[in-house]
């Protein structure tokens, strides 16, 4: 399914939603631009009064100050509005992206690492934020400043105006050339920095190999190469960076010098460059004001460039194909979780499935599990045992065949009623942010404290949890659980909502025998009165007298 929300739609929605604010922001920007024009004009008047030998009234001094104050207040206001606006936009974007998460198919999450997706939320959206705060709006304001100052200069001193009209585009071109050089060097640096950054976690991951093969020196040498690469690129950027601004300022001085000489030439030239000493003083102060925004426009173009890349990536994300909405049809039907016909059991009929365009994981898979039955799936690694669970949970769509749970198609079970139906114990416990209690409830408001405690008691974790400093309210990051206790927590999470079916994915892997025993006991208690489907690698153990269902052609080793 193609998504209808591109970035443009989202942005349009946000801007339309805050029309008054957008208007106020524009007013303040224009106000800031215009009010910045006046102080030099008053200064001109003051200097002219002085040269004419007249005194300067206190009123005039206050007038000058007041204009500066107004301009400062306007600038503050402009900053506030841009910040507020930029934050509104990033908030809106993140909300929209969060909403998208739910609509993405499960396959997206296996194909894309969580870190990468998170980086779209954090880094890419931040480039948009900079685009608003320093980029487009700032550039607009700066362009306004340049144009308006040029206009005033033209009005006061046509000669200087023409001079600036020649110099400004040249400087702008130079700025762009510098920007490009710097961007190239920065890209080089970024590539090197990526290597530098990658080398650290890689070292941590491979530390055993490094030590057993005594490769410390080798690793250091590589690291030094990478930092050296980054060093050279940075040095290049630094050179451009340090040369640029002095050139701009010196050019400004040249313009001032030329203007003064021309004005000093007298006659037509002086006429052309404006007449009075006051004008000259005002002009000097205007000249420096033209060059400041010119410099920032150069910087802003760069942040626009990096934002463009961010926008592209975000747009890709927002346009990512979505999963079918079948599961949403019966969203309000939370009550009929469990399907219409429990006696039908769980049924896979003639199911074929493949991930993407790979080889099919299995073809024509058929089996039925009766309500209340306990079965174990066996098969070699990669045979698709876990895939059976994923299909059952409606995370993936089979290529052919039917999967039904108590008479309802797996894909048509709404997300909201899954928890009443399935308790899924994953291979590895995935802790969520929050307290121990929230690990069990997963923030489900329908699960009460009593239920949480019951689930913990069932798995034998209640004592362990109450022994923690804050009991159930201890943050998971502060609680130290053993591997086996995490498995127990996982089981508690699965049974908290009293589901009818328990799915156990190889949960006794990697446990010592003592813990394993406790986990198995907990599972036995949890499985009582439920339909239980489990996956086991080690068929020789613990299957009791349960029925085995073999997935894939081959029997395990």
């Amino acid at each position, binding site marked *: 399914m193609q998504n209808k929300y591109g970035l443009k739609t989202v942005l349009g929605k946000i801007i339309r939603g805050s029309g008054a604010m957008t208007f106020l922001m524009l007013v303040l920007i224009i106000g800031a631009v215009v009010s910045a024009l006046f102080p030099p004009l008053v200064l001109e008047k003051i200097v002219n009064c002085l040269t004419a030998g007249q005194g300067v009234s206190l009123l005039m001094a206050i007038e000058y100050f007041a204009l500066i104050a107004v301009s400062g207040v306007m600038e503050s206001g402009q900053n506030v509005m841009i910040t507020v606006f930029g934050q509104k936009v990033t908030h809106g974007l993140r909300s929209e992206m969060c909403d998208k998460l739910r609509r993405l198919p499960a396959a997206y999450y296996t194909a894309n690492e969580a870190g990468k997706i998170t980086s779209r939320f954090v880094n890419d959206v931040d480039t948009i934020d900079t685009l608003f705060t320093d980029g487009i709006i700032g550039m607009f304001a700066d362009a306004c400043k340049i144009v308006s100052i040029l206009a005033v200069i033209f009005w006061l001193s046509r000669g200087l105006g023409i001079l600036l009209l020649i110099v400004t585009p040249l400087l702008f071109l130079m700025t762009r050339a510098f920007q490009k050089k710097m961007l190239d060097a920065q890209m080089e640096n970024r590539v090197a920095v990526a290597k530098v950054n990658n080398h650290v976690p890689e070292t941590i991951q491979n530390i055993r190999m490094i030590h057993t093969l005594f490769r410390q020196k080798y690793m250091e040498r590589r690291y030094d190469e990478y930092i050296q690469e980054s060093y050279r690129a940075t040095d290049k950027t630094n050179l451009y960076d340090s040369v640029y601004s002095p050139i701009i300022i010196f050019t400004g001085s040249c313009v001032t010098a030329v203007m003064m000489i021309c004005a000093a030439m007298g006659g037509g030239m002086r006429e052309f460059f404006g007449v009075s000493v006051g004008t000259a003083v005002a002009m000097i102060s205007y000249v420096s004001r033209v060059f400041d925004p010119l410099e920032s426009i150069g910087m802003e173009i760069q942040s626009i460039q990096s934002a463009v890349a961010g926008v592209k990536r975000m747009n890709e994300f927002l346009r990512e194909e979505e999963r079918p909405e079948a599961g949403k049809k019966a969203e309000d039907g939370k009550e009929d979780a469990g399907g219409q016909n429990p006696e039908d059991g769980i049924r896979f009929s003639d199911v074929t499935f493949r991930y993407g365009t790979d080889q099919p994981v299995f073809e024509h898979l058929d089996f039925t599990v009766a309500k209340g039955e306990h079965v174990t799936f066996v098969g070699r690694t990669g045979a698709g045992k876990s895939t059976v669970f994923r299909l059952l949970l409606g995370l993936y769509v089979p290529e052919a065949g039917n999967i039904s749970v108590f008479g309802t198609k797996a894909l048509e079970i709404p997300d909201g009623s899954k928890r009443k139906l399935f308790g899924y114990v994953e291979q590895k416990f995935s802790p969520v942010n929050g307290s121990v209690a929230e690990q069990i409830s997963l923030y489900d408001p329908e699960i009460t404290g009593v239920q949480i405690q019951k689930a913990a008691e069932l798995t034998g974790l209640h004592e362990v949890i109450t022994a923690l400093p804050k009991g159930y309210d201890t943050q998971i990051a502060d609680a130290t659980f053993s591997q086996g206790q995490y498995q127990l927590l996982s089981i508690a999470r699965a049974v908290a909502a009293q589901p009818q079916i328990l799915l156990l994915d190889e949960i006794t892997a990697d*446990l010592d025998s003592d813990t394993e025993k406790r986990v198995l006991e907990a599972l036995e208690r949890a499985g009582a009165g439920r339909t239980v489907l489990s996956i086991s690698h080690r068929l020789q153990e613990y299957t009791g007298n349960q029925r085995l269902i073999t997935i894939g052609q081959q029997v395990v080793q």
Partner: protein
Amino acid sequence: MKREITRVEHPDHILSYFRLETGPLAIVTVSGIIYNVGMTAGPYFEGQLAQCLYDIMKGRRTLQDMLMLAGTYLAVIFLVQLMRCLKRFYVRRFANDTSRNMRHMLYNSLVNMSRAQLEQENLGSIMTKAVGDVDACVEGMRKFTTEVFDTGVVLVAYLVMLFGYDYRLAFMSCGFTLAAYFIAGRLKNVVTSYSAAYRKSAGLLNQATMDRVSNEITYRVYGCETQRDEAYEIRLKDYEKRAVRANLWESTMQPLYNIISMCGVVLIIFFGARNVAGQGWTSWNIAAFTTFMSCFAKMALKSSKAAKLFNAVQKAKVSWKRIRPLMKEYVEKSTDSEIDFKAQEALSVSHLQVGKPDGTQIFSDVSFCAEPGQIIGITGPVACGKSTLGKVLIGEIPYEGSIMVGDRELSSLSEYERSRLVSYMGHQPELMSDTIEENIRLGEEKETDGFLKAVCMEEDLQQMPQKVKTHVGNGGVRLSGGQQARVALARTLYHEGQILVLDDPFSAVDRKTEAEIFRNLKKIAEGKTVLLISHRLWLFPQTDRVLFMENGHTLYAPHEEMLKKSDDYAQLYRMQMAGGTEDAE
């Protein structure tokens, strides 16, 4: 000029880094002082230019004077800007050098940490963060150095000039600047508390994002997405609020401070005009008036930015505090040894005892002896300690009892000697994101072909367009699990020690390949002592002896004998062989 990375002595003192950069910092000091004192030249000459124009209009001076003045003006500005250029570049070079040195030192201490150290207390992620902190710290050091000149020196220069022109007026007008400064200082705590709250909220939001994204499937399976979306929205709202507040205090206050400072301008215009008119405290010409004005405006602007200096130092301090405990003296492990690493060595283990840190025994009284040329199969049920035994041999876990390599006790060997004598391959392939070839060589020059052939990678390599130059991707993702394991095995064989410890090297390859690799292994490891730790037993009949570990006890015998000795071993073996007949088809 090629500049080398330098080793830092006393890397836990920030001054060490400044000291190392004496050269660049000297240039920065000289150019910085000239530039910043020269900053006053701008306003001074602009005043002189205006005065000159006035004089010309009055007919007191000529165009010649203006040309001279403009020429001097440009020359001075050029010099000043040249100094600025030097100062900017060398300050940045100083930062660049320092960042490089810090990283170099930090990495050295990282690469010499043991796995246990890294796993403990999450040191791994602390190190990763520390590397990020280097940037923040160096940025702070750079800003501090810059601001010392750009704010400190320049403020003094401006003040000297202002007081030189008219000390009474300077005194009065600078009072406002002081007031602005005072208010800014007073509000500094408020500003930092708001920005701290903002940063905290940003951290929480990042956490929430990571949580929302990485647990999406869990939330989906449990039907909890809607609640999580709502919780995320609350985070977003909080972040928006705090971001706006923090920015409000940080970026909008500056123009306001500037306004307060600029109050002084009223006095300057009023009293300055009287000076020019000859009724004031001092007698001024137009030049003095404009110079004073523009000097004051520049000073006001500078001082409103002075808060930045404090912020930069503050930030650098925070990150330095985090890095500092990780900064250790440079470690270079000794590679001196009198051992002949080419000599064949037997391995004899007697009364080996290993316990967990909490005191419980993993196994006790393990004894066995392996001669050069033997392959010893080691097995047992899950959690019997067979992998632990492997880790003991590479010095990762301390032991009691004795492990003799030839006639030397393992624990008495240096890290270098141990690594040369004992080669190890663990569960994780631990590949680097580089080519297959480089993953095996790791900086050595020897040919890799034979080793790749031994692990049956030839056919796989034929499929890859770039052959041994194929990049394996991050952590080896571009290879299949079996290929990763085989490359890792080839690497272990390549860096030959006389004793090979292979922990489950065949878990990800099929039986046919396993059998072939095993055959090659026998050839390649001729004369070496091989310990093959595995839970798959079907190759065990081909080993010289079997060490069976169960419930902390061990049996050591050839395979056939072991079948008779241990019922558990026999049962395990038969069960696997029963499955194997079908598998072999």
